[in-house]
């Protein structure tokens, strides 16, 4: 689904995350990049250098906002100050859509600053969907929710993760940011088939995809974003693009960040799979 109502009817290609070590390269060399994803929270400030840099980026590049602290799954009501700042940033960036995670992370106003996994229950799906609707109505921009990588599951879960994601996005009538690496990481940590996940989410709602690197440990896999994308993830991504359609794709590289060119070249590998998917559709 190259362009749909969940990504603002755009047909963005392959982008990368805007990260501090690359700022000077980007501003001085002005490399050709289809789009940048920013972490909203890094720019929800009142002034100073972050906003100056963002404005310079916005003069030349398309930017999409990605959040890490909305916590759609937390029982807390949306924080009005948070929403006010986020909306101001949405107006500044003119992001065609906005994404955040299907997770929880705050309780009674105390923040863990983590993306904690949810119990996959129908009740949680209803509450989460209602919160997403409220937030979307306030922000007036399409929302895509991202599946997180997780390391624990709850006894009370009543369905699989992909069933839960599907239930939430259908109830909220919102999009999906399908993080292929997160699916792979969770599949190894929880012992499910990642292709079942991709095959069973509502494909028409996928507005964006993420790919990233991860780290294998003896008993689990951690979502570290500090490596190139591993082959099994690219294969899953190839399957996802064939299944869901060619979709705006973003490489996340957040730790041990190499040169801009290395990150960008890694991201552009996605084009090989995109071309394959396009041929498959023809």
């Amino acid at each position, binding site marked *: 689904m190259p362009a749909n109502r969940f990504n603002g009817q755009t047909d963005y290609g392959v982008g990368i*995350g805007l*990260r*501090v070590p690359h*700022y000077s390269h980007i501003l001085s060399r002005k490399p050709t990049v289809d789009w940048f994803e920013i*972490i909203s*929270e*890094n720019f*929800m*400030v*009142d*002034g*100073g*250098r*972050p*906003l*100056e840099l963002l404005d310079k980026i916005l003069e030349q590049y398309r930017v999409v906002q990605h959040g*890490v*602290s909305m916590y759609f799954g937390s029982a807390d009501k949306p*924080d009005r100050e*948070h929403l006010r700042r986020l909306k101001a940033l949405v107006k500044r960036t003119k992001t065609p859509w906005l994404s955040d995670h299907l997770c929880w992370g*705050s*309780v009674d*106003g*105390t*923040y*863990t*600053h*983590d*993306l*904690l996994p949810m119990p996959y229950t129908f009740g949680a799906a209803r509450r989460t969907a209602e919160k997403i609707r409220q937030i979307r109505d306030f922000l007036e921009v399409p929302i895509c929710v991202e599946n*997180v*990588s997780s*390391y*624990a*599951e*709850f*006894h*009370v879960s009543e369905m699989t993760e992909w069933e839960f994601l599907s239930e939430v996005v259908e109830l909220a009538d919102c999009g999906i940011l399908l993080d292929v690496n997160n699916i792979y990481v969770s599949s190894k*940590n*929880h*012992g499910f088939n990642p292709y079942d996940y991709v095959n069973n989410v509502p494909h028409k709602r996928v507005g964006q995809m993420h790919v990233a690197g991860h780290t294998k440990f003896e*008993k*689990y896999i*951690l*979502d*570290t*974003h*500090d490596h190139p994308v591993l082959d099994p993830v690219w294969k899953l991504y190839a399957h996802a693009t064939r299944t869901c359609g060619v979709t705006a794709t973003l490489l*996340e590289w*957040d*730790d*041990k960040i190499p040169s801009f060119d290395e990150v960008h070249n890694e991201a552009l590998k996605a084009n090989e799979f995109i071309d394959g998917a396009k041929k498959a559709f023809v």
Partner: protein
Amino acid sequence: MMAAAVLRPLTAEDGMQPKWIDGRPMEKVAAEFISPNDRLSSFERLQLYNRMYWFRLFDAIRDDCPGLVAALGEPVFMRLSQAYLERRPSRSFTLRNLCSRLERFILENPGLTAPRTVLAAEIARFEWAQTVAFDGESRPVVVAPLLAQTPPSRLRLGIQPYVTLLALQYPVDAFLVRVKRRGSLRSEASNTPDSDAVRRRVRRAALPRASRTFVAVHRHHNRLFHKRLDPAAFRILEALRAGGTLSRAIAAAGPAVKPRQVRSWFKTWMALGWFCAPGNKRGRAASLL
């Protein structure tokens, strides 16, 4: 239940506490709500989140407070960080605000940093001022012609919200110059662990001797600076921030200060853009009557 478990302090060996708050074995408690898999027990799975929480927040404090690490040394800093996070967990969606209450916490809990409580509090205050200077609000700058039109007895000026005026007992500014601040831009991203955290170690630095110091932490062209102030200059700026008229502020400098000196200070502050238009967010007057 999970939130309480995640927020609970780790053991000295960086593991999850073996007992729950009611004394039951944590393995049993974790098994009540977390499913095990063929490689990890419920306890081990929950422990991953417990560890990631503490490591992430310790890193965030360390990143924002290199001076405090250098002054207190690793063990004391870690004790302080843990106590702070336990008793003042984050109440903001952004880690940017994590250390906003640290100075006060240090003063309220002197035992954690004794005998260096005052120094520690002043460093925490200075480092928070740097965060404010980095990305705090800036208001429209008041221009000189406007000042000339209003008599000093009626003129009130605001100070930019990103400028923090500090009256210190220690030369914290000079101390922090020695402790090189690592990085300058906050970068939160997803829930990925930070592998650099283990490698980041701030060396303990020689502590400064007490010496009354007046300083403004600010930014210029979006770069962080701190500027030493003459005590009389500090009094003028404080009086302006408190809402006094220009006449009263200048009077606060004291009779020994020469008008030429005051003019020179104002020329510098104007050039730095410190005076702002009405509506200063930090609550002090910035109005032209």
